[in-house]
């Protein structure tokens, strides 16, 4: 199998063409917007928690992105549903990468992990779970409004 066929293997193209969890949630319990500084892609993640306030009941996402980021975020929604916020906040990225199951270069890794990072930020904002380290340094901006 060529590198090419491996990267765009059937399951990736399937998730890309028919993303699970694509859409928005009304009045979500957690929400965050993420940007990939390399290409300008944006994703918004919405989380609905179970009545225990801990278990993730539903995750949806909206936004634009490449096949890898769309497929990875689609897989992510399946991966985390039913888990607790605390678990997901410390979910090793390798677990998602295994799911994706293809070798990724550093740039494409950013694409693949945009959804996961944004989900962790959403949980951090709603529940105070740890912030992923690559987001901590982003604190701050220049607001001219």
């Amino acid at each position, binding site marked *: 199998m060529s590198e090419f066929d491996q990267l765009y293997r059937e399951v990736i193209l399937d998730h890309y063409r028919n993303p699970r969890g694509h859409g928005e949630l009304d009045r979500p319990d957690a929400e965050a917007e993420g940007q990939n500084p390399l290409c300008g892609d944006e994703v918004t993640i919405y989380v609905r928690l179970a009545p225990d306030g801990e278990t993730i009941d539903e995750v949806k996402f909206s936004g634009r992105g490449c096949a*890898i980021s769309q497929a990875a975020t689609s897989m992510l929604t399946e991966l985390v549903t039913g888990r607790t916020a605390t678990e997901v906040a410390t979910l090793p990225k390798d677990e998602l990468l295994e799911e994706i199951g293809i070798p990724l270069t550093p740039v494409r890794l950013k694409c693949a992990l945009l959804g996961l990072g944004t989900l962790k930020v959403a949980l951090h904002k709603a529940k105070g779970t740890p912030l992923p380290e690559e987001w901590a340094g982003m604190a701050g901006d220049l607001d001219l409004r």
Partner: protein
Amino acid sequence: MAVTAKPKLDAHRLRADFPVFEQLFHGKPLSYLDSASSAQKPRQVLDTMHEFYATSYANVHRGVYGLAERSTERFEAARETVRALVNAPSSREVIFTRSATEALNLVAYAWGLDNLGPGDLVVVTELEHHSNFVPWQYVAKRTGAAFRHIPIDDAGELQLDALDGLAAEGRVKVVANNLVSNSLGTINPVEELAAWAHEQGAIMVVDAAQAAPHRALDVQALGCDFLALSSHKLCGPTGAGALWGRRDLLEQMSPFNLGGEMIRSVALDRTSWNELPYKFEAGTPAIGEAVGFGAAIDYVTGIGLEAIEEHEHMLVAHALERLAEIPGLRAFGPPPERRAGIVSFDIEGIHPHDVAQVLDWEGVAVRAGHHCTQPLMTRLGVAATTRASFYLYTVPEEIDRLVEGLHRVKKVLG
């Protein structure tokens, strides 16, 4: 009037100067269509740097011994080479920086912090590179000046009829614009903007990072006050760039970076500045890289900037014609005669990252992203584009490979 043949270059022959093309990628030769991001380096430049470091290197300006003199001579000769490239009146006005980005920050900090305040307007354009955009946003915020922009029309050209409205809003103090847009290739009317800026009592800051590699520059003809360029886009090493500034402005300005070299004298309670250009070159400069920058300018001017410009026009016309074959492809920007060798496009329903990835496996290197021009992307209604850009070593066959590759992209991901 004598009829003169248009200057020509032989890109097939020039390619042999670039060792990077001797390799295969994914089993295929390399079509490097990302020169707007950074140019490849010819042997002539690499050998000069190697030779310089091996035989003539020491720290500059202070050493009394022969090796230091030799090093200083080479460094200052590179400054003179940059001066000649931009036709500056004096090499005292040429400051070495790391990059065009740093050159623009130097102006924003050292001129902006002391000369801007509430009621003042800083005017950039909608197609600026972040490097001539964010520094101005930053000093505007710090000083309380207003931050405004000149919009573009659908062809990617500046809408100069917006200028009157801007002038009515406050005292215009800075106008900042790139001479060539790195995303669209648009050649902007910098002379007109400079004239307008001066009518307003503003300074005109030109980002020539993308123009310098591709066309002859003349700061006196442009009528600007500052001009930034960088080495790495012009076949030179990274780590070197330059700022040209009008002498009287540079003389009035405070320094930016502080430290060794930029002082006349230092005492516990009082420090005074060195003469131009050293006032703006704190610390050990990028000596070997300046020498490499000089060698790169020699290489490029040896070929001839007019010949390069002509070559790129030919390539971009060919590219626009061939890209029109691809269904769903939308190319942004002005017609070939008003642009440099850069084409940005969108293929309906396919993300630029995926386009670039598939092309890579075909041995075609293009850039996918916002190209550090997010406000422009927003204006175009996309997050990113795919961009193919050309240089003196680009041959038309590479554009044909790009088009073939795009057919493949459509087949797989369309």
